[in-house]
């Protein structure tokens, strides 16, 4: 059980690492959001599941699994809220040639 916990915590740390690298290296707001919104959630989930496995079956493990469930619901919600706020504030997406893909607030056509 301890070996499994170590594997879970190490993979969670790996996903935290990818989230940090993407957050530092990506060119604009939306791609940074893409890197952190998913990798950070998965890293926290794996790390906390590993800690619950290491602790064994008790009330503390149930609380940790409840935190896991809470993060699984709320972290994408927070990501969506920030993204929505940025899109309504007319933050334009990055493109390779600098052309604007579509105007902010405009409905997508086609």
């Amino acid at each position, binding site marked *: 059980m301890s070996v499994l916990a170590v594997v879970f915590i190490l993979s969670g740390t790996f996903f935290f*690492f990818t989230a*940090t690298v993407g957050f530092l290296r990506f060119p604009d*707001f939306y791609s940074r959001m893409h890197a952190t919104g998913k990798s950070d959630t998965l890293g926290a989930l794996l790390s*906390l599941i590993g800690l619950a496995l290491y602790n064994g079956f008790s009330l*503390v493990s149930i609380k940790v699994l409840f935190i896991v469930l809470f*993060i699984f619901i709320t972290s994408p919600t927070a990501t969506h*809220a920030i993204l*929505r706020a940025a899109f309504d*504030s007319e933050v334009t997406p990055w493109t390779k040639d600098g052309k604007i893909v579509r105007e902010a607030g405009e409905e997508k056509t086609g």
Partner: protein
Amino acid sequence: MEDFFLTISLVLGFFVLLCLYRVVRGPGVFNRMIGGSVIGTKTMVILALMGFLYKRVDMFVDICLVYALLNFIATLAAAKYFQRKGAK
């Protein structure tokens, strides 16, 4: 096992420092907002690890839960506050 938890905590603290670069330098308020959210998530895992290090998991797991709640509410409130045209 304590050494392993201490090493993981230090590595996560280093990642928090790296994210702090984007919070300080990042252009615009929204990059800073993601930075706060990301640092909050990492801090939560560090808190759980600290509980195992100090052998007071029953106390630290409650702090971890409250930190998760506060992080979520703070992010939602900030997103609602900055949701207007031309905020950048």
